């Protein structure tokens, strides 16, 4: 067992005037994740620590935190990789509800704004078949777990919270590329706006931090090409 030093940002907006860091010493071995360490703090040292978590296996996307300034999933980040104090803060660019819990309302509003569901005229119960090639077009972008790490990584979302952001644009591209979907025309107006794909300046940090390797920056740039084509087509329409 090794002892690790955690500096956790604490903040209760109803009682504290400003956030402050609290120091905890946590035992751990090579299998101890940041989430394990935070749960140790909550169970053994300080039950008032607020954090969000669920699956512990990088599927639910709830335990996103900043670890030494980088957005990470707590369950997928291990203490063994850190050799100095480990600073844990709530996800950047989101409002803090308490300690490490952030308000995801705006993120969810952006996701729903791009109509993230299949839109088509099919009725009946027949299975809608897809070839492996048709599946491959969008499959990579369909693995998003809505953890919000890419929004914490995105400086443009930090500057402008109305920017739809990496996950929402990736999700739009995921449905636009799906052969079963006819909803592209309904999604394009959102993506064509200055807060759509054009709010991105291709920093690319979203793709670096994505725990599922979706490459949202690629999806956003594909969307820019789509939006540019849409722009040209619109010039020839009455």
């Amino acid at each position: 067992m090794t002892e690790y030093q955690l500096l956790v940002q604490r903040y209760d907006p109803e009682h504290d005037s400003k956030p402050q860091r609290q120091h905890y010493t946590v035992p751990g071995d090579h299998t101890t994740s940041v989430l394990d360490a935070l749960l140790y703090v909550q169970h053994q040292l300080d039950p008032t620590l607020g954090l969000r978590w669920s699956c512990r296996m990088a599927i639910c996307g709830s335990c996103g935190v900043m670890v030494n300034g980088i957005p990470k999933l707590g369950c997928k980040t291990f203490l063994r990789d850190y050799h100095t104090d480990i600073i844990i803060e709530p996800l950047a660019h989101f409002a803090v509800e308490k300690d490490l819990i952030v308000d995801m309302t705006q993120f969810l509003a952006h996701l729903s704004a791009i109509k993230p569901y299949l839109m088509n005229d099919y009725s009946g119960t027949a299975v809608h078949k897809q070839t492996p090639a048709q599946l491959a077009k969008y499959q990579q972008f369909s693995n998003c777990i809505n953890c919000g790490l890419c929004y914490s990584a995105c400086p443009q979302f930090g500057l402008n919270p109305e920017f739809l952001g990496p996950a929402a644009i990736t999700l739009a591209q995921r449905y636009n590329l799906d052969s079963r979907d006819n909803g592209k025309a309904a999604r394009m107006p959102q993506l064509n706006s200055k807060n759509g794909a054009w709010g991105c300046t291709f920093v690319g940090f979203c793709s670096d931090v994505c725990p599922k390797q979706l490459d949202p920056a690629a999806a956003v740039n594909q969307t820019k090409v789509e939006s540019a084509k849409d722009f040209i087509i619109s010039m020839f329409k009455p």
Partner: protein
Amino acid sequence: MNSPKRSDEPIWWALFSAGGVCFAVFLPGLILALGILWPLGLLNSSVLQYAQLLSLLQSGYGLTGLAFTGAVICLPLFHAAHRIHHGLHDLKCGYRKSSKLLCYGTAAALSMLALYLTFHLILAD
């Protein structure tokens, strides 16, 4: 949610992309030839004689000269203007009409000047 206004960004992004390609493809060759090989005397100096260059620019009814100016001056100017415009936004003082006008306006004005001078040169004799 109402449909938001369509952004005019595709125009500037297209110019930015084209400028980026020119920056990456043509300018290194130009810098190598005119900035390094020529000063070192490694380039046959007769190639860079006025008459030689002029006939090169005039070839293809002068389109070569205009294309050259477009590729090494105009499009890279728009590329740089786009970067400055978005860089100003990152510094929290951009995305205003004024910064857009200044950045793309300067690129457009200098491009027009470059094309005018090239055109003038092509018609020289």
